[in-house]
């Protein structure tokens, strides 16, 4: 049988960077094909070429054995290729229906096709058990729901080849599972799927074949059944990945953070957080597990001073954190000066300024700490500090003058974590530290966090990845609906029980 | 040898439909008659005014005519530096033996316009449209009101200004709009003292079949049939005369206030508005004119600090 997609000798470079070099592999019709590799390995570039975004410098693409020139996304769509991008391609202030119709409106007047489209959309939702309201506006939807809209778009256009670029990076375990359900349905219908992910377990779970890329080249192509996570990781990174990172004995010290009855209501009076009570001690990592959107983000924002609680208090090293309404804007600075570091969940929105250089971002938030004479920046010191940081945390490329927006997500994340670690905090708030990051980098980040714990820093970790929670936490809190629904020590780690608590089953 | 002459316009430029243009016409007439050329420059800011005056003075010009009150300080300063150059300042008063400051009694000409307007008006509601609310424009308005009230105490004057920036002199749409609004409020004669914006006013009057009064130069020819008259301010004559005196060696410095008597201001009666000016109107206007010239009627100039009596 002809392969559905075949790459032959694809090369692509951006300036001096060789993103793809002589990439060749084929994907059988009706297969789910995994594509893995480190950040910057060239996966997205290859897919962008397939989707008509970029033109390859050399090589050809064959669809069903026929050579195709894909010059634009329009053409790709016409050829039955659909792509779910790493970053959602949705228009925020439009409805699901409008987003789905965009590009395939059916005629000049929308009204004449809208009803039809809505009907078709509802049918698809039913058939694939996708829970999406066609008339909801995108910015009101959760991340998972937005992901479903992206899928919906592709089904609606009856794409035969579906590319998913890191679709699970922001999904919960349940959401991932339901996504995979859909993918299996697709496969049954004979559609071809290309899945990019950094989570090797997912590769093992769902794909039929895998291609591994490194440095823009294909370094391995295997049948999933014939390989293992370890083997894949080894191929990707070029060395074995340690699963159980070394950690010191659990010796919790004095309480660093005591949260008492913290609550938050939004402007409309809806309760986002209620009765949050917990204690965090020096030298321990407490992980907050839970489906995203259950108040974890809000809690982190309050504790970092970015947002004010409506009730309750939090004692930091014995004295209450100064939540003062009129000081709201400057609070993150006050908290930071107390010794609270914060790795924000959304690094591009909060954690870095994309248009600043890497060096400028290495003291973002600590701009008042790097002053020299005359109260001006001491660039010599900053540059030295930056060089050390890039070396120690293995940021690639180690170029301090590059705009940080040009670094890969994983490397951006390394810069953020390095920055916060270097501040020598007493309390570290960490939100989703490894979202979209490759396994080698995950290992590096985890090592850093554990080292921090071992020197007595209190770490509050928010993660939707149970794997990550398991790898890092000493204790686990589970949140649901703005409340803490349970707590368990790491040695009682039990996926089922945590799942129940995440679903709102109260402390049994 | 022929005298070397210069004209310096202010920010309005020589086509401002106002005193700059009038000055240009005067200078051109002189050139045509005598064949003596003149240099002309526009000074867009007060700083430039000083720069250009000094520049011209250095070129050893014999006489420089500075048009517009905005050049007052510049003339005063440069005249002191160059005692051999003679300056004519229009619309402002500057010190110096080598300066002739020529001001106009706009209130007198406007008075006649007011008389004519009040006579021609049926509604006894008269309109006035000025460019910017500055003393010079207020002087026109006040003279106009005095004239109107001399005909009919109950005449009502509706007054609008186009704006507050230099754009107010180049906004014919607004000038027309103000006129239209005034007509809708019952005004049937409007006096426009707003440079280019006034063009919109005159045009609107023509469209609406109402009467309009022009200003500075004789604008009667623009819309014959609806142009009641024009209040002419003979900046052209002032410039022409000064140049002539220069040529003939009769020029003297000092301060000259040119009113009706001196031929500095007047109303315009020509073939274009002959039909609109009835014998009664003509008689009344000429009467008022004579009274002012004879000193029997004193028209208040608000620039002297007096409040406008009308």
């Amino acid at each position, binding site marked *: 049988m002809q392969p559905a997609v075949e790459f032959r000798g694809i090369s692509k470079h951006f300036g001096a960077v060789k993103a793809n070099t002589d990439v060749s592999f084929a994907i059988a019709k009706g297969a789910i094909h995994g594509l893995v590799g480190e950040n910057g390995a060239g996966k997205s570039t290859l897919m962008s070429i397939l989707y008509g975004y970029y033109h390859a410098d050399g090589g050809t693409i064959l669809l069903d054995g026929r050579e195709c020139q894909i010059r634009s996304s329009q053409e790709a769509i016409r050829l039955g290729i659909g792509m779910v991008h790493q970053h959602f391609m949705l228009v925020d202030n439009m409805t699901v229906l409008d987003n789905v119709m965009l590009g395939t409106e059916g005629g000049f007047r929308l009204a004449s096709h809208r009803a039809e489209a809505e009907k078709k959309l509802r049918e698809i939702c039913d058939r694939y058990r996708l829970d999406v309201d066609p008339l909801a506006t995108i910015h009101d939807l959760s991340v998972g729901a937005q992901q479903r809209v992206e899928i919906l778009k592709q089904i609606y256009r009856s794409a035969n080849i579906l590319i998913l670029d890191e679709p699970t990076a922001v999904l919960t375990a349940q959401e991932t599972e339901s996504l995979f359900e859909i993918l299996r349905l697709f496969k049954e219908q004979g559609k071809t799927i290309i899945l990019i992910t950094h989570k090797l377990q997912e590769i093992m779970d769902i794909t039929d074949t895998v291609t591994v890329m490194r440095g823009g080249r294909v370094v391995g192509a295997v049948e999933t059944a014939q390989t293992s996570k370890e083997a894949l990781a080894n191929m990707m990174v070029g060395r074995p990945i340690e699963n159980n990172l070394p950690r010191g004995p659990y010796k919790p010290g004095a309480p660093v953070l005591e949260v008492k009855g913290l609550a938050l209501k939004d402007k409309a009076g809806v309760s986002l957080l209620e009765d949050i009570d917990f204690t965090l001690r020096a030298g321990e990592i407490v992980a907050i597990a839970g489906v995203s959107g259950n108040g974890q983000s809000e809690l982190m924002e309050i504790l970092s001073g970015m947002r004010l609680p409506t009730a309750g208090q939090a004692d930091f090293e014995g004295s209450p954190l100064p939540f003062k309404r009129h000081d709201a804007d400057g609070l993150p600075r006050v908290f930071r000066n107390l010794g609270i570091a914060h790795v924000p969940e959304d690094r591009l929105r909060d954690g870095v300024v994309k248009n600043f250089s890497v060096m400028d971002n290495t003291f973002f938030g600590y701009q008042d700490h790097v002053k020299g004479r005359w109260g001006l920046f001491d660039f010599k010191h900053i540059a030295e500090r930056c060089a050390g940081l890039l070396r120690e945390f293995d940021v690639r490329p180690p170029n301090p003058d590059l705009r940080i927006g040009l670094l890969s997500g994983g490397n951006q994340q390394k810069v953020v974590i390095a920055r916060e670690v270097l501040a020598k905090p007493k309390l570290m708030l960490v939100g989703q530290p490894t979202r979209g990051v490759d396994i080698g980098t995950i290992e590096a980040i985890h090592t850093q966090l554990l080292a921090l714990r071992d020197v007595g820093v209190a770490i509050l970790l928010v993660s939707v990845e149970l794997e990550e929670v398991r790898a890092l936490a000493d204790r686990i809190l589970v949140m649901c609906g703005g409340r803490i629904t349970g707590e368990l020590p790491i040695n009682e780690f039990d996926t089922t029980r945590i799942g129940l608590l995440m679903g709102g089953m109260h402390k049994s | 040898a022929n005298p070397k002459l210069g004209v310096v316009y202010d920010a309005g430029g020589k086509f401002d439909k106002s005193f700059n243009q009038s000055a240009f016409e005067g200078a051109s007439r002189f050139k045509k008659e005598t064949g003596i050329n003149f240099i002309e420059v526009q000074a867009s800011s007060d700083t430039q005014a000083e720069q250009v005056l000094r520049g011209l003075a250095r070129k050893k010009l014999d006489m420089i005519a500075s048009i517009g009150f905005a050049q007052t300080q510049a003339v005063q300063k440069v005249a002191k530096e160059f005692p051999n150059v003679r300056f004519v300042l229009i619309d402002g008063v500057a010190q110096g033996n080598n300066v002739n400051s020529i001001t106009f009694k706009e209130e007198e000409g406007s008075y006649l316009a007011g008389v004519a307007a009040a006579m021609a008006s049926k509604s006894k509601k008269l309109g006035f449209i000025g460019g910017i609310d500055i003393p010079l424009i207020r002087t026109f308005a006040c003279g106009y009101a005095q004239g109107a009230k001399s005909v009919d105490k109950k005449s009502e004057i509706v*007054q609008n200004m186009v704006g507050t920036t230099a754009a107010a002199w180049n906004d014919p749409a607004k000038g027309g709009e*103000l006129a239209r609004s005034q007509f809708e409020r019952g005004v049937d004669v409007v006096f426009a003292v707003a440079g280019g914006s006034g063009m919109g006013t005159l045009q609107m009057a023509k469209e609406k079949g109402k009467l309009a009064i022009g200003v500075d130069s004789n604008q009667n020819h623009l819309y014959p049939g609806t142009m009641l008259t024009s209040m002419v301010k003979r900046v052209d004559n002032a410039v022409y005369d000064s140049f002539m005196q220069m040529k003939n060696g009769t020029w003297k410095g000092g301060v000259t206030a040119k009113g009706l008597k001196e031929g500095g201001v007047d109303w315009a009666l020509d073939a274009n508005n002959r039909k609109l000016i009835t014998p009664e109107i003509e008689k009344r206007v000429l009467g008022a004119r004579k009274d002012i010239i004879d000193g029997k009627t004193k028209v208040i100039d608000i620039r002297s600090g007096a409040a406008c009596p009308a």
Partner: protein
Amino acid sequence: MSFEDLHLGSIVVSTVRNSPVLLFAAMAGLFAERSGVVDIGLEGKILASAFVSAAVAFTTQNPWYGILAGIGVSVVLALLQGAIAITQKGNQLVAGIAINIAMSGLTFVVAQYFFQQGGRTPDLGEARLPEIVLPGSAAVADVPVLGWIWTQLLGGHTILVYLAFALVPLVHWVLYHTRFGLRLRACGENPHAADAAGVSVERTRYAAMLIAGILCSFSGAYLAIVQSGFFLRDMSAGAGYLALTAMVFGNWRPFYTFLGCLMFGFFGAVQIQLEGVDLPVVGRIPGALIQMVPYVVTVIVLAGLMAKSVAPKAIGMPFVKSR
């Protein structure tokens, strides 16, 4: 001051008559900006089309040729802006400002060269647009309220006034109920999404600029061959900026933008009426101060009543395919 003194009728009619200049330009800006291209160059396009339409109308003695020529020049400028913003990926604000400044100079220089009247065109005389007299006007003219409504409020305007007002629902319809509108909004909000959905961002934005050019030209034509009957240097007198203001004020939505334009027209008309009138409490407001009425009111309305204005997200940013 009594109610009669306010001349409400006159204010309303004056509002109607004054609005088209702003309306056309604001709707033009709406198309450009909803597609993601900042259009600060409205002023320049108004001025250029005002000059060209007046000059051509005068030369041919036909206002329609004038309007056509005005469209032509305004479209050329809009497409130039488009080429800079879309193809060259240059700074859109700079492009707009450059066009405004260059047109202010160029219109004068050219007008002066051709007509020698100080940057003015001669009077158009008969080459202006006729005012439309509604059927039956003569009959109802003397009926009290109805007569006024029929002959002055509804009738007695040129075709451009009707076009301007008809534009509001039309623009709304195009924006929210057509394929083009959907794509346009998507390009202004998230061009990457539009692109991924197979919509050509470039084509959509060029189309938007084309429409902006056409609409903006009416603004200039109205100014020159309807309101004034000639062209005068810098006669746009800030109308382009005011239109932009009305659009921001209206949150980039046709109906609210329309209200913004009406607001300027209305308070401008009120200001005319208030000048020189003794008001209760404050007395007579000096002439210079009264000019600020429309602007002060705008600020107050903006500060007091309006929620935050939210611009199209991708506005002003060139679209580059990679992030």
